[in-house]
């Protein structure tokens, strides 16, 4: 694949880029740069303040803010993702030499796919190629649009996500408007998260993993499973994205003889409590081997473990929280009476955590995420207070905007969904589009839509269009792309389908049928016609003439069928009769069984075909009848008349019984006269006759019944004269015989 310049990602702030992933680059904003801090939060000490944390609505200007960063980056060339073409033709550091040789680089994109071809040309357009051309300058260099080539693994994720999207759309249609009391979205959100989790583990891509973290955060905050509280979900997200304490940290302390005596014991207990890991925390206290003999200490420890183990969870958590918190407060007050200083301090701090004390939580936390999740879990788990906790947290622990996922999660927690989506779009357009769809279904983007004043598509639709275009440009996922594009509002998505559908190569009839199905559904009649005509041309090039005719008949294209008929006749007169394919054979042999338009339009060739068949079978009288009727056909193009007259020669031999009655002979003579009267037709006919004779001379062996075996060396005009003479002679013979 590509070789990557070492500088390509060096400034990006987040580490690696995996070429094996090749997921789509963001389209909403410039990729490859970290989420640059906005002017408001550029200072590392300044708290993250979401523009949407206040009461005001989202505005397009907010989206523009993201672009200010993009525009800044535009001018910094090194920040643009760069890769080197495979077998790059310019030696390192020799660009100027290459230019001095008068060379330039040109590139053209593929008409559908996300790749193109680069080649080297000379700058002097009028030639003057005095400079020696090196072998590498006569090569072409395939190149892909940066980061647009999707790996098979990533395509699997795209397909899985699409399947879920279809299922959700169907369920949504059945259920109508989503009933808040029976919200189906969390179920689908959980499944989407699982699909994304599987994909990121399979693909080993950092950006997809970062997208997972943001996605998990958003689902925890807004699409929570009804069996748990939002606070539990947020804590669960934190414990998964940043597990603390680690298993090693826990076992280092708890596997000692007296864990209680370890310096880090209380730190461990407090961290477990802070992270809502109540059972583990309780077990630590039980297994600490504390050697307190006094009853008040024992009782305090028992109370602590009891409170931890009875922490309200799931559906009961919200109602039971106030009472449980009161127990924690009372427990903390009781602990002040403990005589053992170490135990007293440890338990009071534990109680302070459990009652959601701001100062304690801030003091023990290491990140804004930890503070937010802990305050949400312990202080008051009312969803409306989440952004408030976030503000408290970021005042002490500023958001690190150089980590894209952190910036995304901050936007989620602050309630700034458009910004969160724009961050997701920087990480993965497919994920961003699906998340936007979930948000849209939950009506979380309504405010953003309502204030739109510019002529822009809804953000969710725009993301789906971006994802749809990527799918359409990726081999094997065009139909998935079309599904997404169909589901966007307005004409933009449909226009993109319309533009791309004729570019899809119908490599088999199943693909063709599928494409035509979409055309029918979307009323793309012109595109359907173009696809069918193009398919018929392909079939012709594969010698599947019957199939080509059948498809053209399906769109009522008489013009093309007629053209095929004449092409068949021309080719046969030139090269001799070849075996037709099965479908064409059926049309030719059983005209009554084929559709009316086909029967009518292929009649001239069918007549010639019958003539040759009867001739092969030795039925010369019948054969002559077919040829005679063809020669009398009023719409026969002039160029065919000459060779067909030549075909008549063997049938006019005196050495065999007469094949044509007088009236037919006279009719043919009349046709010949009419043909000769029209100079253009005559010339065309003679020229083509000469061509058929030339062709016969070039062929080493003609079919035995080919009239040219005997007459190949006679000039075309002489052949016509000979036919005329023989016709006259045959008429006189007929007259004599009829006497």
């Amino acid at each position: 694949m590509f070789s990557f310049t070492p500088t390509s990602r060096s400034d990006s702030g987040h580490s690696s880029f995996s070429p094996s992933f090749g997921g789509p680059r963001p389209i909403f904003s410039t990729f490859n740069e970290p989420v640059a801090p906005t002017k408001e939060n550029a200072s590392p000490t300044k708290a993250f303040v979401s523009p949407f944390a206040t009461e005001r609505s989202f505005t397009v200007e907010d989206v523009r803010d993201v672009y200010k960063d993009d525009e800044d980056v535009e001018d910094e060339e090194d920040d643009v993702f760069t890769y080197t073409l495979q077998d790059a033709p310019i030696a390192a550091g020799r660009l100027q030499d290459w230019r001095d040789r008068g060379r330039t680089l040109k590139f053209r994109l593929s008409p559908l796919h996300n790749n193109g071809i680069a080649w080297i040309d000379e700058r002097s357009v009028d030639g003057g190629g005095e400079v020696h051309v090196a072998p590498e300058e006569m090569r072409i260099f395939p190149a892909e649009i940066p980061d647009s080539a999707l790996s098979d693994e990533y395509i699997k994720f795209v397909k899985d996500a699409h399947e879920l999207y279809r299922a959700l759309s169907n369920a949504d249609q059945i259920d109508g408007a989503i009933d808040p009391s029976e919200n189906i979205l969390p179920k689908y959100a959980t499944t989407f998260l699982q699909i994304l989790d599987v994909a990121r583990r399979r693909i080993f891509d950092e950006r997809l993993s970062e997208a997972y973290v943001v996605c998990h955060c958003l689902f925890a905050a807004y699409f929570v499973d009804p069996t748990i509280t939002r606070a539990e979900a947020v804590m669960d997200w934190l414990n998964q994205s940043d597990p603390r304490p680690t298993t090693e940290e826990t076992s280092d302390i708890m596997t000692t003889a007296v864990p209680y005596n370890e310096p880090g014991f209380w730190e461990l207990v407090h961290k477990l409590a802070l992270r809502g890991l109540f059972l583990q925390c309780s077990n630590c206290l039980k297994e600490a081997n504390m050697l307190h003999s006094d009853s008040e200490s024992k009782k305090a420890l028992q109370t602590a473990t009891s409170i931890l183990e009875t922490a309200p969870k799931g559906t009961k958590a919200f109602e039971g929280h106030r009472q449980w918190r009161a127990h924690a407060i009372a427990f903390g007050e009781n602990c002040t009476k403990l005589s053992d200083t170490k135990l007293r301090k440890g338990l009071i701090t534990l109680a302070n955590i459990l009652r959601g004390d701001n100062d304690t939580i801030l003091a023990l936390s290491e990140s804004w995420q930890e503070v937010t999740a802990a305050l949400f879990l312990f202080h008051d788990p009312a969803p409306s207070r989440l952004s408030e906790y976030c503000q408290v947290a970021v005042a002490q622990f500023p958001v690190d905007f150089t980590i894209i996922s952190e910036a995304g999660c901050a936007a989620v927690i602050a309630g700034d969904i458009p910004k969160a989506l724009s961050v997701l779009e920087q990480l993965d357009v497919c994920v961003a589009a699906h998340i936007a769809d979930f948000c849209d279904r939950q009506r979380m983007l309504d405010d953003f839509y309502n204030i739109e004043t510019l002529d822009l598509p809804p953000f969710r639709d725009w993301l789906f269009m971006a994802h749809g275009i990527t799918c359409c440009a990726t081999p094997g996922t065009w139909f998935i792309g079309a599904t997404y594009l169909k589901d966007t509002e307005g004409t933009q998505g449909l226009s993109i389908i319309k533009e791309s559908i004729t570019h899809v190569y119908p490599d088999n009839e199943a693909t063709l049928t599928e494409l035509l199905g979409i055309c029918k559904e979307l009323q793309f009649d012109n595109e359907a016609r173009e696809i069918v005509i193009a398919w018929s041309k392909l079939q012709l090039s594969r010698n599947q003439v019957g199939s080509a005719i059948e498809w053209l008949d399906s769109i009522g294209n008489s013009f093309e069928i007629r053209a095929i008929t004449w092409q068949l006749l021309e080719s046969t007169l030139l090269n001799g009769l070849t075996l037709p394919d099965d479908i064409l054979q059926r049309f030719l042999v059983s005209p009554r069984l084929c559709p009316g338009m086909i029967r009518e339009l292929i009649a001239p060739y069918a007549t010639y075909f019958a003539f040759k068949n009867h001739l092969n079978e030795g039925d010369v009288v019948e054969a002559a009848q077919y040829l005679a009727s063809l020669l009398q056909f009023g719409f026969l193009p002039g160029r065919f008349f000459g060779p067909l007259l030549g075909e008549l020669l063997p049938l006019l031999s005196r050495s065999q019984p007469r094949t044509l009655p007088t009236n037919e002979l006279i009719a043919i003579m009349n046709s010949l006269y009419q043909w000769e009267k029209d100079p253009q037709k005559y010339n065309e006919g003679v020229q083509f006759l000469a061509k058929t004779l030339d062709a016969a001379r070039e062929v080493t062996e003609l079919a035995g019944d080919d009239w040219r075996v005997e007459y190949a060396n006679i000039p075309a005009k002489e052949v016509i004269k000979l036919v005329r003479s023989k016709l006259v002679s045959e008429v006189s013979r007929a007259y004599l015989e009829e006497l």
Partner: protein
Amino acid sequence: MNALSTGHEDLIHDIAYDHYGRLLATCSSDQYIKVFTRVSPTADWTLLSSFKAHDANIFSLSFALPQYGLLLASCSEDQTVRVHRSVDDGRTFVKVATLSDSAGPVHQVAFAKFGGHGLKLACIGTDGIVRIYHAADPTDLRHWHLAFEKVVDKNGLLASGVAARDLQGDFAIDWCPSGTIRAPWFTSNLDTAMDDSDLPRVDRLTIEELAVEQFVASSMSKVFVFRKRLNGGLYEYERTEELPGHTDIVRDVAWASNAGVGGRYELIATACKDGWVRIFKLTTRRLGVPTTEYTNGAAGTVSVNEEKSVDYDDFAYDVELLDQFDHHKSEVWKVSWNFAGTILSSSGDDGRVRFWREAYMGKFVGLGVASAEQIPQDEVDD
């Protein structure tokens, strides 16, 4: 994918994809055209056919739409445009027409990209004249009618009517790929609350209602749009809008599909010797130009009503420079759009291909760079 040795014996001047991106043709100063194929869009190209097509440098190639069969046009320093046809899926090509109206080398050739326009071929060369040929009967490719010819711009041409060789004049042409024109008045009264089926959606209109034949052509430093307009009862090509601001020779022009912007406007990119890639936004504006209207008078007579005669379908473009980039820091030679008109590539003397993409607000931002310069060994080791 690896670089591919084409087998040409001189520099390659142009490449062309067929409509599906399944075939690739290259042309060279060696007077040969080579056609390559690939089994899938990610597979390597393999040579399918090779044939001598001209008697001098071949400058440009273009495949016709597939509904006309496999047709390939080429143009050359030998002052001709030639049309080649294959009936065996590209394995062999036969020359079916030679068009030799040009008074100088022909620089660029382009088949019309929109099916509704018919089988049309545009070309331009050092005589600065854009020519449009039309095969009225696509089944008989021997006959091409010269439907239009006009000097794009006299500036920069010698008195003899051709560009001076030492000026390295360049001339380019590209058809509008979309058959759709959605003028502002078309959607101005749309109510989003309307039933969807009531919307006069672009995709529900017929070819006749939509197809506006137009192309962009450049001659030296001037770029103009040409469009068919009603003139005396006939639709004829006219030079309409200018894309201004080029300070040196324009090397290439590329008209984007308007699908990516839902037909709201058109985008045209230019590559210029002054080092800039420019993207022009063309927004339709209704004109209502007076034209002749015939009305049926009494007793079957026909009278001309000039007062009421207005061509309500006529329009013009408001041209706006949407974006411009000088990142190549050197001459830019080629611009190319993706199928949706949302990604643009540019390439030039810096040995780089630069990619630009349309962002949500409609502006273009950098997407990445493909470099033809090898990485220094020490950086590879690092």
